[in-house]
C-alpha cells in the first residue's frame, strides 16, 4: 500500500507537536496548557501511524489523551486556581534554564552531524497488517518479565492511592 504524501504529513504533524509543546509552557491559564498538551499528544499519535505502528497510536490516544489528560484536568479543576496563582512563581533560575537548554542544543547538533552511522542502515518497515500481533507476541514472549514488573509497580501505585484516600471513604 503506497503511502500518500508522507512528507507533507510528516512536517505537518511534527510542526503541530512542536507548536503545541510551545503553547503548553507559554499559556498562563493551566487549562489552556492542558488542552495544548492533549493536542500535542494526538499529533504524536498521528506520527506513530506514519511509522506503521497503529497499535501504539491507538494506545496513545486511549491512555494519554483519554485517560491521563482527563485526570490532569480533574486535578486542575479541583485545586482552586486562585490560591495556586498567588503563590510566587520561582522563575528566578533563568540562568540554570539557559545552560540546560544550551547543553541539549549541543547534543542535538552532534547527533545530527554524526547522522547515518548512529542508526541501523535499513529502515525497519514491519508490514502494516500484523503489527498488533507482533507487539502481542513480543510483549508476552521476550519481554514477559519486564511486563510483569511494570504491572507490579502499577499495582503498588494503586494501593498507595487507595490508602491515601481511605480515610476519606
Amino acid at each position, binding site marked *: 500500500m503506497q503511502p500518500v504524501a508522507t512528507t507533507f504529513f510528516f512536517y505537518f504533524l511534527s510542526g503541530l507537536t512542536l507548536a503545541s509543546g510551545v503553547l503548553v509552557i507559554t499559556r498562563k491559564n493551566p487549562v489552556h496548557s492542558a488542552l495544548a498538551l492533549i493536542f500535542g499528544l494526538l499529533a504524536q499519535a498521528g506520527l506513530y501511524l506514519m511509522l506503521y505502528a497503529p497499535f501504539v497510536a491507538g494506545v496513545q490516544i486511549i491512555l494519554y489523551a483519554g485517560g491521563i489528560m482527563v485526570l490532569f484536568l480533574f486535578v486542575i479543576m479541583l485545586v482552586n486556581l486562585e490560591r495556586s496563582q498567588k503563590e510566587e512563581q520561582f522563575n528566578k533560575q533563568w540562568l540554570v534554564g539557559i545552560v540546560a537548554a544550551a547543553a541539549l542544543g549541543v547534543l542535538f547538533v552532534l547527533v545530527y552531524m554524526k547522522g547515518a552511522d548512529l542508526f541501523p542502515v535499513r529502515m525497519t518497515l514491519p508490514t502494516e497488517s500484523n503489527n498488533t500481533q507482533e507487539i502481542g507476541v513480543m510483549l508476552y514472549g521476550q519481554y514477559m518479565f519486564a511486563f510483569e514488573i511494570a504491572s507490579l509497580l502499577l499495582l503498588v501505585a494503586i494501593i498507595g492511592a487507595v490508602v*491515601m*484516600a481511605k*480515610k*476519606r471513604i
Partner: protein
Amino acid sequence: MGDQITKDPSTYLSHLELGEPDKTFLDSNELIINMGPQHPATHGVLRVILKLDGEKVLGTECVIGYLHRGVEKIAENRTYTMFNPYVDRMDYVAAVSNGLGYCEAVEKLLNIEAPPRAQYIRVILTELNRLASHQLWLGTHALDIGAMTPLFYTFRDREEILKIFEKYCGARLTTHSFRIGGCQYETYEGFERDVEKFLDFAPPKIDEYEELLTTNRIWLERTKGVGTISAADCKALGVTGPVLRASGVKWDLRKAQPYAAYSKFDFEIPTGQHGDTYDRYLVRMQEMRQSLRIIRQAVESIPEGPIMAKVPKVMKPPVGEIYHSIEAPKGELGYFIVSDGSTQPYRVRVRPPSFVNLQALDIMVRGQLVADVIAVIGTLDIVLGEVDR
C-alpha cells in the same frame, strides 16, 4: 440514628447539632446548599437548607411559611358555614377529607348527627379522594426518583375520580361538597353506576403501577433503606399516617376512633416493618386497594333517606370547645374549635399532618445523600398548603 430520640431527646434537639465532619487528609469543606422555594422537587414552596459534607447530609433546616394565608385568623371572622370552603384550600390534594373533618367537628359542637345516607356518601367521597391523593403522590414521587412513566399512568386514572367529583358537585379539586349536618347535594342518578364502573376500572391499573415499580431493580435500590425512621421516633415526633404505619405501628384513626360510617366497613390496615421509603411505598399502594374495598362495601349498602340533618339557619353552638380528628391521606388531621356561643368560632386550630410529619425530615435524612433528600421529601407526601395554612 433511630433511637436517640427516646433515649435522651434534649441532646437531639440542640439545633442543627451536627456530627463533626471527619476532617481527613483531604479536608472536605462543608457546603451549605439552599434547596430553594422554587425547587422542582419540593412539592410547593418549601425551602430546605442542607448542610453537606461532600455528598453526605449533615443536617437540614426547613424554612416554611411562604404559603401562609392565615386561615386560622380568617376563621375567627367568618361564620361556621362561611369558613367551610377555606378548609378545602389547605390540603388542596385531599380537599374532601379536610371538609369532612371540619363538618364533623362542628356537628359534634352542635351535638347533631349526620343522617346515615349522608355518612355513607361522605365515606365514599373521602375514600375516592384518598385514592386520588395517593395516586398524585405516587406520580410525583416516582418522577422525583427519575421514573417518568408512572406519572402519566397515575394522572390518567386520577382523572376518572375527578370526573366523578365533577359530576357530583361541580368541582374537581376543592370540592366543598359537605355541609355541616350532612351533604349538600343528593347523588346524581348515575352515581352508583359510575362508582361501580370505577371500581372495576381501578384494580388492574394499580397492578400496572406495581408492575412498573415494585420489582424494578433501580427503584428498589433507590428506596430500600432510604430515610428510615423507627416507630419510637415516629411516636415521639408525632408523625402519623402512612409514614407511622410503615414503621410498624398498626394505628389508623378510622379503626382506632371510627367516625362517619367507617365502623360499618371492614378493611385491614397495612403496615411495614423497616419504616423506609420502600415500605411507605408498599403501605400506600396497599391503602389504595383497601380504599377500593371500602368504597365497594359502601356503594353496595348505601341506605336511603335524607341527606341533611335538621340544622338551624343561624348556627350558634353552645359555649365550649372540642377536638375532632380524622385519618386524612397524609395522617391525623385534627380540628380544635372553641366556640363562645356567637355565630363565629372564637378559635379554630387545625392540626395538619404534613406540618408535623415534615419535622421528621431532619432525622430521616441525616447521614443520607443529597439525592435521597428529594426521595424522602417525596415519601413524606407533604402538601405545603397544609404545612403553612
